[in-house]
């Protein structure tokens, strides 16, 4: 593999790995904050216990999200220095603002929340977790604005003197139409992950208290968590579907090739005919007489344009277009303007399938736990394990789809990916860092999962009346 392939693999590994933790951080911080505030409102002891219990799971996860984020920020300069030079004027600003506005907020107030038991007034203490959550949202906004620029560059001009992109309108960059649909889509999907995790943990612990005969309060507490998680999954799942639908329309408009690749639609349907959507295809993704197992007529037209007879252009058509407009510039020429079709086709479907699966589980949990019932069947356990996993993987599928579907561009229409790598970095350097990071990431993932499982096994601690710690007393919490 050459430096380009290696740098791409490393970017993919780092991003996908980083994104295992981010949605949990965003989704779970909101649920922890909600439980903490509910305790103050209602004085229901189980709410405080849940806030502390889920808070522990949150901090275990937060640590890994943070450290993988550092690698994410640094690798633009390390592996993609030509890209950084070309768009640094625009791309750097949201990154710097993300650190200044969001990262400080998240880490400082998380420190206050973790160590603040008995030290700060309780309302302020609960507010700390809400502030952490706001920090995660701000962070997501800025990084998605940067990513949306890569998908659909706006608010810039190319300076012929310096040969690079320069900022022309920062507000336009922050309100990029791609950004306005991507942000709600990603955020609701993060709540989906948080909800699925709480649903799974709650249901699992609920079943345990029934089997092992735990106290009635525990039973009520975990049942509440399972149902709360289910509601979050259903509501946010609806948000994911709606925002995803809007995003599909914007995407068809600004990146028609991505939509065509998502369906493996090679030929533009003839005038007056609509484009179908295939749920499954067993062969022929290469364009030669595809075998669609299930095909829904006109659905792709609807997904792409909002109208059942809207025009969706095919791959061959677009390829010819792009070749004509971009083929003779050093920065924009590429061997092909078609992204890897099988990757986009399957990731698009897997992304949607995981979301619908989680929503189905959410609805089922609400039904199965009605009137104090507990689903005790054997087959429920795999569902408990699979649901949060599916939602996290759903994010990965979505990111792989959106990033692979953008190829061969690093910045759509302005810079091809193969021109963006660092010229001074050798393949052995990238090999070294990729091997080191992959091993490190693998090891840390094992540690994190085992730690999470042992904390889930231990369950929520018994209720303890919060108290203010006097100066010579032991702390409520210390390392």
């Amino acid at each position, binding site marked *: 593999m050459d430096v380009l392939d290696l740098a791409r693999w490393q970017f993919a590994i780092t991003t996908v790995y980083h994104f295992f933790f981010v949605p949990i951080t965003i989704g779970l911080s909101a649920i922890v904050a909600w439980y903490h505030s509910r305790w103050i409102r209602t004085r229901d002891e189980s709410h405080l216990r849940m806030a*502390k219990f889920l*808070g*522990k799971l949150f*901090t*275990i996860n937060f*640590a890994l999200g943070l*450290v993988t984020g*550092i690698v994410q*920020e*640094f690798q*633009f*300069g*390390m592996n993609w*220095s030509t890209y950084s*030079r070309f768009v*640094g*004027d625009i*791309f*750097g600003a949201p*990154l*710097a603002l993300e*650190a*200044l*506005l969001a990262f*400080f907020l998240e*880490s*400082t*107030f998380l*420190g*206050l929340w*973790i*160590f603040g038991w008995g*030290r700060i007034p309780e309302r302020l203490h609960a507010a700390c977790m809400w502030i952490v959550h706001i920090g995660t949202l701000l962070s997501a906004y800025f990084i998605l604005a940067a990513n949306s620029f890569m998908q659909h560059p706006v608010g810039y001009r190319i*300076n012929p003197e310096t*040969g*690079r992109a*320069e*900022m*022309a309108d*920062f507000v336009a960059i922050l309100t990029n139409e791609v950004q306005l649909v991507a942000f709600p889509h990603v955020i609701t999907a993060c709540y989906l992950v948080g909800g699925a995790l709480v649903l799974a943990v709650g249901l699992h612990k609920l079943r345990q208290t029934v089997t092992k005969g735990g106290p009635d309060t525990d039973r009520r507490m975990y049942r509440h968590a399972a149902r709360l998680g289910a509601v979050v999954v259903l509501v946010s799942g609806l948000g994911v579907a709606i925002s995803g639908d809007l995003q599909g329309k914007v995407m068809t408009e600004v990146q028609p090739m991505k939509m065509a690749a998502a369906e493996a639609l090679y030929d533009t349907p003839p005038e007056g005919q609509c484009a179908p959507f295939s749920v499954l295809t067993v062969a022929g993704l290469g364009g030669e007489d595809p075998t669609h197992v299930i095909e829904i007529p006109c659905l792709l037209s609807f997904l792409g344009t909002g109208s059942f007879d809207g025009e969706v252009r095919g791959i061959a058509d677009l390829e010819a277009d792009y070749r004509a407009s971009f083929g003779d510039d050093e920065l924009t020429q590429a061997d092909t303007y078609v992204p890897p079709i099988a990757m986009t086709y399957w990731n698009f479907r897997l992304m949607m399938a995981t979301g619908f699966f989680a929503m189905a589980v959410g609805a089922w949990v609400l039904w199965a736990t009605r009137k104090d019932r507990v689903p005790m069947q054997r087959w429920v356990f795999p569902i408990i394990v699979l649901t949060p996993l599916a939602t996290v993987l759903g994010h990965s599928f979505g990111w792989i789809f959106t990033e692979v579907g953008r190829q061969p561009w690093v910045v759509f229409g302005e810079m091809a990916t193969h021109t963006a790598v*660092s010229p*001074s970095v050798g393949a052995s*350097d990238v090999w*070294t*860092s990729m091997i*080191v990071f992959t091993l*490190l990431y693998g090891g*840390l993932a094992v540690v994190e999962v085992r*730690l999470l499982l*042992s904390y889930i096994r*231990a369950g929520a*601690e018994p209720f303890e009346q919060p108290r203010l710690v006097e*100066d010579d*007393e*032991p*702390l*409520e*919490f*210390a*390392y």
Partner: protein
Amino acid sequence: MDLITIWFVLLAVLWTGYLVTEGFDFGVGMLLPVLDKGGEQQETRRRTMLTTIGPHWDGNEVWLLTAGGATFAAFPHWYATMFSGMYLALLLLLVTLILRNMGLEYRHKRHDREWVRRWDLAIVAGSYIAPFVVGVALTNLVAGLPMTEHTMGSTAYTEFDGTMLSLFTPVAVLGGLTVVAACLTHGAHFLALKTDGPIRQQARSVATRGGLVTAVLAVALFVWLGAQRGTAVSWVVSGVAAVALLAAIAANAKGREGWAFVGTSVTIGLTVVSYFVMLAPNAINGRGDSPDLTLEAAASSPMTLEIMTWAAVVFTPIMIGYTVWTYWVFRRRLRVEHMPEHEPAGAGAH
């Protein structure tokens, strides 16, 4: 001041913020196996030390991320050249920071000895290696890196042209060691200020010895680097930094722990300032006959710089405000007696 100068100054502020704040938590990490002696409470002493930095270290590290992001935004060519040029050194920094962070976050999450011992190793090793790499990297920017000319469109810029080994020159290694010694002393001052009982006494005595070692290394570094790159202003600034260090040593000897901590903060801050004075008007000095990367060539467009300036003017004071408040909330001195008993194994505290 023009926008490029403002951003150069702001980067100096960010590096100062990083080394002054994370400097003391690095120091605390270095001192874990040093200040846990002389009693039966070895583990409780370590926990006490780590708890002094517990609420702060995560936020301290964000200064590094902000410095990285701000370099990207304000001086893209600087960011690109530095990060791709110092590739393997940065890899080392990232790996040690990751392991150290995981150690700080995970060490107390289980109570079996093997687990705690392994994460302690990550914390201690990371606390020495990371500031060393930062010291080497920053010293290289000033002392000079091997560079070549490249063009992009019609502009020329410079690109790193060397290997991992070209970073480890004698003066850069001295820079790395000085940063390590300074962080150790700074951390000892912090512990003396934030603890009570035996740890406080031992921290003060370690601080005196650490301070003297730092003074010798720092003076050698200032003279060596100054001889190559010094200007009148940089000599004055590094002179004041040295005086602040001596004052810190004296304050610590007299038991004025707050002033000693202020002293090492000033030393570290002024060292960064003297580095930036020696760097201007370049972003990276070229080694020998290599071309320099000038700030002018490295900078973003005026519009980006202007937007970023407004953001920094509005949000930096807010950020500093709540950070200071955190230090106020956790202002009390800690003793080993303040450590809560561990909860049952597996459950742990947070």
